[in-house]
């Protein structure tokens, strides 16, 4: 131990330095937030609770039931149930996500050719029961209205760039017979 060290120890130099920093911070704004009183807004691309995008033209989900999201999901937590409708169209009867198994990779969002599944900015969905975290089609559409809506759509589109938005088939193309996706005139 050198003399210098002895002096530092005796006069508590380190502590004084530390206290000085503490004291100086008393007069600056805090960086932490007083959650849950104060909430941090999610950035674009934040991967929160799932939602099915509602098609404003039809009022139903945009989803056509292609099942690509279910195929790509690494934790196999998406189930899509479809059937043939009265006009031979494909009808999405059920769409389920087991949120508790999801790893929030957002691969489903990337895979969807119609921008029909979204991860909303909503992250406060902790609950006491498993059932509360089992999402059905209705609940997923409800999530969209609640956590995305008009405002959210812009946010969603600007980050995820759904392929559909850029996809313009040539005229007269036999594309879903104009029935499945509303507002898709080509």
């Amino acid at each position, binding site marked *: 131990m050198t003399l210098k060290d002895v002096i530092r120890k005796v006069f508590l130099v380190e502590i004084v330095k530390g206290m000085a920093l503490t004291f100086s911070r008393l007069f600056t704004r805090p960086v932490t937030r007083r959650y849950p009183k104060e909430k941090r807004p999610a950035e674009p691309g934040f991967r929160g609770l799932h939602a099915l995008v509602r098609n404003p033209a039809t009022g139903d989900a945009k989803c*056509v*039931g*292609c*099942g*690509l999201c*279910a*195929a790509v999901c690494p934790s196999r937590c998406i189930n*899509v*149930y*479809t*059937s*043939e*409708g009265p006009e*031979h*169209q*494909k*009808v999405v009867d059920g769409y389920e996500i087991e949120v508790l198994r999801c790893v929030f990779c957002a691969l489903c969002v990337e895979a969807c*050719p*119609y921008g029909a599944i979204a991860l909303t900015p909503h992250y406060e969905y902790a609950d006491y029961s498993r059932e509360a975290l089992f999402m059905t089609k209705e609940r997923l559409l409800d999530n969209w209205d609640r956590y995305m809506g008009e405002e959210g759509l812009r946010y969603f589109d600007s980050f995820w760039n759904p392929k559909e938005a850029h996809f313009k*088939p*040539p*005229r*007269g*193309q*036999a*594309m*879903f017979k104009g029935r*499945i996706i509303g507002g898709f005139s080509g």
Partner: protein
Amino acid sequence: MIKVTIDGRDVELEHPVTVLEAARKAGIEIPTLCYFEGLSPFGGCRLCLVEVEKLPKLQTSCTLMTADGMVVRTETEQIRAARRSMLEFLLINHPLDCPYCDKAGECELQDLVARYGPEAGRFAEGKRRHPESFDDPIIVRNMERCVLCTRCIRMCSELQASYSISVTGRGSHSFVEPFSGGRYDCEYCGNCLTVCPVGAIMSRLHRHSYRPWFVEKETETVCGFCGVGCSMVLQMRENSIIRAIPRRGVGFNEGLLCARGRFGYEYVEGGEELTTPLMRVDGELRQVSWEEALSFTARRLGEIRDEFGGGAVGAVASGRCTNEDNYMLQKLMRFVIGSNNIDSAARNYYAPAQIYLERIFGQGITANLIPGIANSDGVFVAGGDPTAINPILGLKIRAVWRSGGRVVVLGVPGGLKRFVPYELIPVPYSEEIVLSAIVGRLLERKPPGGANAALEAKLRDLRIPSDDELGSTGVSPEDVARVSEDLSSMSTPVVVIGPDMVQRRRASKSLFLLGAIAYLTNARIFLLADRPNYQGLLDMGCLPELLPGGRPVELEMFRHKAEEALGMKVPEQRGLNLFEMIDGAESGRLKALYVMGENPVFNLPDGVRVEKALGSLDLLVVQDVHLTETARLADVVLPATAWPEKEGTYTNLERRLQRVRKARRGKMASYGREDWRILADIAGRLGMTKTYQRVEDVWEEVMHVSALHTGLGYEEMDGGRALWPYYGEPLRGMEGDFTVEGLDGLPEVPAPERPYLMIERPLYHSGTFSRRSKALLAIQPGPYLKMNPELARRHGLTGGDKARISNGRGVLELEVRLDDDMPDNQVHVANTFEGFAAMRLAGFGTDPVTGALYMDDNTVRVEKVLR
């Protein structure tokens, strides 16, 4: 030896094959679209292009034959560019339907475009439009997606030989359409949709309800509709069957199925399945618990046995149930209750015919391979339409024709009509005269070789009809000469025997004559079987006279062997057969009947009489999947599991043992129990000490008891390669121990005023199960009366009219369907629809020698129903 170099790899070939096949043999993958293994090469899609040194242009490898010294490259920049262009052309008119198209995920075009395709097309001029066609109940066509590979057309004409579809139109408006336009007028085998590489021809059964990656489990099993026993794969999602598909390389059906096999499975989840046991309380069937139903059944069976003896109890086994189920029923009857009264609906024709043929030639005479038929150079068919009773076997007969062989059919050719050079339709029930004449001609041509002395001795006594005597049959002596000439020119012939040759008076003589034809021409014999496990019934001892292994119960040696193997006693006398049991029930001799998976009220002649007989029993137990006509009369109904819900084995008509596997499990599968488990439970309550945990335990016992199945475990059966006899003891040789009725005489050819009622065996329906299958009902929704237009005219009828047919036994009212191919002395009705059972009008006569049912007396009065 041909040497070729493909992608720098040397390949040596014994025979010249196409470059594509040579490459595949060497493990080099060349992309294809129009090529399909088993179909003729077409060379239309040009995706299999390869570069061959010294040839200036790219060549299609699927049509180019290898030559010695050829140097081939399969993946160069030039080839990739060519493939890319081909795909770009295909996509000009191809809709971008993938997210919506049911083929996505297993679409060959999708895969190819992902691998070679252009990222974007340059063609901006719009696509052709062609509406999706829903004219057909089972198949949906979306010709916008068709890539004109013609695989479907080649399948339909080359393998199915139905020639129903073709390319219509020109240029970009070429579409594949059925000749009839609109609805398919075909055999609904669905084999075209197996081969379509894209989503242009698809099944409507599971339309829009699945994606290939939603398949959670695949179960390889055997079709439960007929005695061919085609292999198929059941694709499951959460306990529901999504599809039943064939697969090349699995089973001997080589990727083919018929309409029943492919589309008929839906009955298992039709919603009408029995869910709980039922018991008759105060005259009504009420739901009860398993325990209640089983203890009641066991107690009553025990009481009846103790009071009246084992002989007062009988059982009916089932051609739809597995070997294990039938074995267990047999054990319950013979060894636990002590009664040899066990039989099945195989009694109608299959069992008597099989036993009789075995008496002539020895056991296993009909154990011939179905795929082998295609290698024959001639087929003689008598007594039924193989393309409807056993469709895949029928295809092999058509294959004989395609490869230049002769097909001769005695009777109405049905689905073989286009394949016979001439028709040979005798007056009904005069066939034995025609057969005698044919045998006579054959004997003139070539004296028999002496291998089967007993048969030849009987042949010497045979009365050969003169040309005059032939006259009454409607078949000319020239026709007979022609048939015998054709038959003797065949070097590897096949004789196919159907039910109609057995269900007649003097069945022994018809069978003997057919056997003689086979003997004189050195042919292999096939006996058609319209249930999946008729042969298994015989092998498992579900006959009053035979123990498991096909051993006569009355021979002490065999009886002792079985008793020793099981440590239990069997009664010495043979039991009552199915018809005798009905007699017994009527006379009060039989007190209790246990019916498993069979519907006697519907499938036996004279339903009114059967109903009454069953009604007078003290105890009727019915074990089935649905509440059948017979189950409604029962005192106890026990719900059993259906075909995809159980493990076991079927023995097909060539005696191939194949595994039936359980595909559905868990809470959503039916509430029934496996048949053998129910039976073992009852046997346990009646004193059987042995217990069984798994179905394998039952089979082990079979292997132990039946000499035919020794050493033939489940592992040996995998891959469908187990044909009995396997490691078994030598076969029971019973040659020579047979009698033939009426050898030295010729029957009078009856000429009744009224037409004969014949049982039709349609392609789309086979009974209690098929009529609960939505898809099969969509193809054929109901019963009909098939008759010749001339006959109809005589009765003032035309197609679509309602006609009443009747005889002393009953009345049926059916819609008339005209058929030019039918003779004008008969009408055909199928025995498949509830309330329209043709068998209800049939008589109960049985042939004294073979014990088979005869139908000769069934003429009916036909009248128009006025509305």
